[in-house]
C-alpha cells in the first residue's frame, strides 16, 4: 500500500513550477512507508491506522473544515445569541479580507519562485507605516474627516502611493535578497527571507518604537451604513470587504487577461520553458513581488482604517496566519488564497469565541500543522484552475 493512497495524486504540473526538479516535489515519497511498519510492533499496528485515517481525512478535508466552521458558527449562535453571531460573522469577514489580500502575496511568490517569503508579513507592517507617513505628510487626516468628497480624495491618494511604495519595497527585497539565490539550495533563500523579515522588524522597532502606534485613519470612514437584525454594518466594514474583493477581482483579471499575467503564469509553470519563449524572467518575478507587496499595502491600509493601531511586529503573526490561508487554499492558487483568507478569518474569529480569544492564534497554527500533515496540496487540491 502506498503512503499516498488517500491523497488524490496531484499532478506536479498543477503547481506553479513544482515539476522543475525532483527535489521540488511537494510531498516526498519516502516518508511513512512500509519500512516503518517493518520496524517494530507498535508502529506496525499504528502505521496502517494512521495511513487510513490520513487518507480519509485528506479526502474529506474541505468538507470537514466547512462542517466544523458551520458548527462553530452555530455553537456561537446558540451560546451567545444571534446578534453576536452576526457581529462575529462580520468581524470574520473583515479579518478574512485582510488575510486574503496578504495571502495572495504569499501564494503568488510561492507559485513563481517556490519561496516562502517570510518578509511579506513585515512588508505589510511597513506599508501600514508608509500610509501613516503619507497621510501625515500630506495632511490627509483633516481632508478625510472633513467631507465625503475629501474622504474619497484622501483614499485615492493614500492607496496608490502606499501601494507604490510597498511595491518598490517588495521589488528591492527581491532584487537584493532573493535574486542571487534563485539557483542556490532551497535553504539559502529561506534563511535570507527570515533575515529580511527580521531586518524590517528591526528597522520598524527602531523608528516606530516598541509600542502600539495609533493611526488616525481609524477615524476616516465612520458611521453605520445599515443594520441587519441587530447587527450594525458600518461603512468601514463595507469598504474593507468591498475593497478587498475589488482588488482580488482586479488581480484575477490582470493575471488572466494581460500579457504580463500570462508571463507570470507561464513562469510559474516552467521557468526554463518560459525563458525559451522569450519571457523576461527577472522582470516577471519583480512584477510578481510588486503586485504582492502592493496588495499587502492595501491590506495594511484597510487594517489601520479598521483597527486604528499598528505595531512593529504585527506583521509577523499576521503573516503566518495569512500564509496558513495560502496553504489552505492550495499554495500557488490565487483564488484559493482568497477563499482561504476568508475561511481562516472565520476560524480565527469563531475559534476565538469558542475557546477564548487567547487561543485564536494557537488554533490557526494548529490548523496549519493539520493542513500540512493531512492535505498539503490545500483545499482545492487537483481542481486548481487559476494560478500565478
Amino acid at each position, binding site marked *: 500500500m502506498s503512503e499516498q493512497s488517500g491523497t488524490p495524486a496531484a499532478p506536479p504540473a498543477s503547481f506553479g513550477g513544482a515539476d522543475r526538479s525532483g527535489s521540488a516535489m511537494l510531498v516526498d515519497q519516502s516518508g511513512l512507508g512500509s519500512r516503518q511498519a517493518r520496524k517494530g510492533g507498535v508502529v506496525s499496528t499504528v502505521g496502517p491506522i494512521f495511513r487510513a485515517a490520513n487518507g480519509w481525512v485528506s479526502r474529506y478535508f474541505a468538507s470537514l473544515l466547512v462542517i466544523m466552521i458551520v458548527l462553530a458558527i452555530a455553537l456561537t449562535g446558540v451560546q451567545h445569541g444571534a446578534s453576536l453571531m452576526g457581529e462575529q460573522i462580520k468581524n470574520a469577514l473583515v479579518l478574512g479580507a485582510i488575510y486574503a489580500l496578504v495571502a495572495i502575496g504569499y501564494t503568488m511568490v510561492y507559485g513563481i519562485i517556490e519561496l516562502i517569503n517570510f518578509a511579506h508579513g513585515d512588508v505589510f507592517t511597513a506599508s501600514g507605516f508608509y500610509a501613516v507617513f503619507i497621510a501625515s505628510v500630506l495632511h490627509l487626516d483633516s481632508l478625510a474627516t472633513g467631507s465625503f468628497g475629501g474622504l474619497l480624495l484622501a483614499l485615492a491618494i493614500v492607496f496608490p502611493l502606499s501601494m507604490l511604495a510597498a511595491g518598490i519595497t517588495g521589488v528591492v527585497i527581491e532584487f537584493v535578497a532573493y535574486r542571487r539565490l534563485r539557483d542556490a539550495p532551497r535553504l539559502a533563500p529561506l534563511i535570507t527571507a527570515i533575515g529580511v523579515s527580521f531586518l524590517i522588524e*528591526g528597522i520598524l522597532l527602531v523608528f516606530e518604537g516598541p509600542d502600539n502606534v495609533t493611526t488616525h485613519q481609524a477615524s476616516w470612514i465612520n458611521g453605520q451604513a445599515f443594520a441587519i437584525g441587530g447587527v450594525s454594518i458600518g461603512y468601514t466594514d463595507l469598504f474593507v470587504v468591498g475593497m478587498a474583493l475589488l482588488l482580488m477581482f482586479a488581480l484575477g483579471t490582470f493575471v488572466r487577461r494581460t500579457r504580463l499575467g500570462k508571463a507570470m503564469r507561464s513562469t510559474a509553470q516552467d521557468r526554463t520553458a518560459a525563458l525559451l519563449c522569450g519571457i523576461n524572467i527577472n522582470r516577471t518575478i519583480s512584477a510578481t513581488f510588486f503586485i504582492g507587496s502592493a496588495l499587502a499595502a492595501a491590506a495594511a491600509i484597510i487594517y489601520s482604517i479598521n483597527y486604528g493601531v499598528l505595531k512593529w511586529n504585527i506583521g509577523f503573526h499576521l503573516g503566518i496566519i495569512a500564509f496558513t490561508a495560502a496553504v489552505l487554499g492550495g499554495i500557488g492558487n490565487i483564488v484559493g488564497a482568497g477563499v482561504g483568507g476568508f475561511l481562516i478569518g472565520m476560524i480565527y474569529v469563531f475559534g476565538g469565541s469558542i475557546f477564548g480569544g487567547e487561543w485564536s492564534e494557537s488554533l490557526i497554527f494548529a490548523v496549519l500543522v493539520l493542513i500540512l500533515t493531512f492535505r498539503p496540496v490545500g483545499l482545492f487540491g487537483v481542481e486548481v484552475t487559476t494560478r500565478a
Partner: protein
Amino acid sequence: MRELLVSLLRSEPAQGQRTKGTSVFWILSGTASGLLLMGWLLPWFVNAYSAGVGYSAQDVTVSPPTGVGTVLIYILAVTMVVLVVSPLAEVLVPRLRGRRFGRTADRIRLIAALAGLALTAVIWLLVSVIQEEPLFGSMGPGTFTDSAVWLTMYGYALAALVYGARPWVVGRQTLAFGVAVLPFGLFLPLMFHQAPDFLLWAAGSLAIYMLLALGLNVVVGFAGLLDLGYAAFFAIGAYACASFASPIHSIHLPLWVLIFVGAAIASTFGAILGAPTLRLRGDYLAIVTLGFGEIIPDLATNNVFNLTGGPNGISGIDQPKWGFLDFGASPRWYYWSLLLVSIAVVVLFRNIERSRVGRAWVALREDEVAAASTGINTTTTKLLAFAIGASVSGLAGAFYGSLVSIVSPDDFSFSVSIAVLSIIVLGGIGNIVGVILGSFILTFVIFWVLPNMNQWSTTLSQTVHVPALANIDFTSYTYIIYGIALILMMLLRPGGLLPSRARRIELESTVEGESLAAVQGVA
C-alpha cells in the same frame, strides 16, 4: 538504540580532511602575541563591560598586570599556553601531523599540563603568602585585580589538561576541543576570584546559547531540516525544570535529574513534532516548526491545565545546594556545570557526526530519495535528528530555568529561535567548531557590544555635543543585527565563517556542478 549509544561514544577520524597549509611559526607566534595583548586588554574589557551593563566603576576595578613578578608569571603562562595550543597547530598544519606533534608530544603536553597546574598552585600559594608589593604589584589571590594573569594561568591549565588527556579521552577532536575550551578558559579565573556576577551571567547565557546552537546544528546542519521553532524545546526544558523544582507544584527534584528530565521531555516532543512533518519538504517543514514554536509559548501564556503559571511564568525555581556547591550564591557553579556539559555535548556530537547515523543525516540532507534507496531508514533517521537536537535544547532549558530562577513565556519567543539560527548561519552550518565560534561572536555582540554602544554614544554625545546620540538605544538594534547577519552570510558566505566542507559544496553547488545548475534552474 544500542547502535546510537555506541556511535555517540566512539570517535571516528574525519575522512579526508584537508586543510590549508599555514606556517606553524605564524600560528604559535600569533597565539602568543594575541594572548599577551589580551592580558593587557582584558582589564579594559571587563571595565567597559561593567560600565555597559550599568555597573559603576566602584564595583569592578581591574588593572593591567603590574610588578616584575607578575609580568614574569604572565610570560610563563603564555609560554605554557603556546606549548598547549600546539595541537591546534597540528590540526591546522597537516604536514606536521604524526611527526613532531605525535603521540610523544601528547605525553609531553600532559606532563606540561600537570606541571602547569602544579606551578599555578605553587605561585598561587606564594602570592598569597608573600604579598610583596614591588614583586607582585597589587596582585593577590583574593582580589579581582590582575585577573588577566590568573586568567591565562587557570584557563590554559585547564585547556592543557584537556589537550593532554586528549588521546585517552577521544580521538582526533583537537580543534573542536580547542575552540570549545579556550574561550571558556577566558572566564575561568573569574571562578576563583571575586568576579562580578554579571560576567558569570554573561558566560552562563553564552554557554546556554552555545548548547542551543549545537542542538539546532544537528537538525539544520547535519540533517538539513530547517527548524524555526527551536525555542519551543528550550521552553519545554525550562518549564520542565520549573515545574519539577519549584513551589508551584511542590515538587523539588535536583537539577542533575532535571536536565535529563528536560532533555527527555524535549526529545519526546521533538519526535512528536517530527512524526507528522516527515513527509514535508524543507520550507513547509520550516513553517510547521515555526507554528509549533508559536504554540508552545501560547500554551504557557494561557496557563493550560494550570501547569505553567500563565503570562507571569513560574518563579522561585530551586537552585541546587550540595554542601559548598551553592548554586544560588553565585552563578559560578552554573558556569562550571555548563562548561562540563558543553564539552560533553561537543564530544558526543562530534562523534555522532562521524558515525553511521551522522553519515545517514548527510546523505538525507543531500538527496533523500538516493539516501532511501541505499537502505537508510529515512523515518528513524529524521526523527533521531529531531529528538537529539531537541534533547540538547531541553537540557539547556533546564539549566536556564534553574539559572535565572524564573521562566516566563516571553523568554521563548520566535526571536530566540532566530538568534540560535543566526548563530549557526554565522558560524557555519553543520560545522561544530563554526557553531561554537558563532555563538561567541553573536553573544559578544548582543550582550556586550550593544549595551556598551549605549554607554559609548552617551560619552560621545557629551564630547561632540550632539545630544541625539545619547538617546539612541542600541539594544533595540538586535533584530537588525540578526537580519543583516542572516542576509549577508547567505549572500556572501553561505557556508558561514567556518564552513563545513560538505556544506560548502552543497551551498555553492553552482560552482561544483555548473552544467547541472544550468539544466535544472535557468534564471
